């Protein structure tokens, strides 16, 4: 493989070596898609990742050379290279990295040819536009616009672009005029190689709410078990006592054990019974 790289000019060889050495240095090597990220956002994201991950943009051919030279299993990463890929290196685990990258996602204005990531809905109601040619622009793009009370209004709620459909030039123009930003832009992880295993985004998308709910559930179960089994801890002792006291009161009232603490309850019960019976005799 050294032979293979010797065909490359020095700067390319250096680049390949750099890719390899970073892959050896960090626990995780991943590919991210940079497609459609404007330069300004790109800078912000790099800043956000500083200290947590290394982002490296380079030529796909050099990436292929580099991983090809490293052999199995990491060379599998080459099959994920697609369009504008960049390399990302970190010591975070792939789930953590995926989460961090998700957090870098921002909503952007759509450009013609973009795919709607979800249904783009335009709500019914007035717009900020004064009557003018814009009504025609809206209408031509398929938006039910009209003039009412000196304002341009949308007459009814409209699914303007369906999820997965391409946004055409007219639609992109309307969305931009309405300041609707439907496109998710950010570093999207294509694959992560970590501790010998490849992780794809479908595996990495974790539902934090579910984890939260499970923690609540686990805590409840532990609490229930502790109280049920009368295992005293700082958290369970009070409910256990309350439970014991409640049981004792129940028994006392049920069996009419005339004890000072519960005699009022027994009286109350007797009086209600008498009332109920009286009600049935009237």
């Amino acid at each position, binding site marked *: 493989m050294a032979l293979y790289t010797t065909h490359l000019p020095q700067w390319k060889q250096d680049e390949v070596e750099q890719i390899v050495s970073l892959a050896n240095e960090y626990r995780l090597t991943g590919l991210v898609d940079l497609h459609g990220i404007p330069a300004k956002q790109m800078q912000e994201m790099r800043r956000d990742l500083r200290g947590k991950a290394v982002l490296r943009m380079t030529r796909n051919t050099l990436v292929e050379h580099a991983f090809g030279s490293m052999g199995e299993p990491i060379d599998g990463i080459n099959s994920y290279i697609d369009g504008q890929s960049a390399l990302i290196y970190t010591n975070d685990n792939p789930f953590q990295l995926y989460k961090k990258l998700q957090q870098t996602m921002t909503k952007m204005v759509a450009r013609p040819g973009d795919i709607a990531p979800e249904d783009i809905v335009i709500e019914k109601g007035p717009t900020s536009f004064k009557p003018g040619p814009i009504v025609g622009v809206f209408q031509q793009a398929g938006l039910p616009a009209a003039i009412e009370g000196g304002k341009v209004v949308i007459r009814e709620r409209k699914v303007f672009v369906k999820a997965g459909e391409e946004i055409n030039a007219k639609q992109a123009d309307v969305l931009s005029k309405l300041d609707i930003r439907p496109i998710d832009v950010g570093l999207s992880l294509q694959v992560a190689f970590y501790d010998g295993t490849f992780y794809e985004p479908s595996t990495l998308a974790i539902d934090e709410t579910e984890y939260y709910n499970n923690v609540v559930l686990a805590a409840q179960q532990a609490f229930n078990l502790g109280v049920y089994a009368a295992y005293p801890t700082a958290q369970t002792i009070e409910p256990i006592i309350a439970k014991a006291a409640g049981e004792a009161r129940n028994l006392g009232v049920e069996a009419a054990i005339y004890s000072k603490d519960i005699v009022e309850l027994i009286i109350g019960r007797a009086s209600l019974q008498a009332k109920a*019976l009286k009600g049935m005799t009237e």
Partner: protein
Amino acid sequence: MEYIYAALVLHNAGKEVTEDAVTAVLAAAGIEVEDSRVKALVAALDGVDIEEAVAKAAAAPAVAAAAPA
């Protein structure tokens, strides 16, 4: 209500709620018994499922307990 309570004393002790029995209980409590009320009570209770009436009311005391908190 003492007539009703007298009936409940009898019922709870597994005795029949008759005019004589009710009268005896009330008299023992030093109450001047009105025959007509005893008659009316016993007549009214005829066909009444006392057990059921009492069971219905049994639910409430727990609620009462909640109140003073």
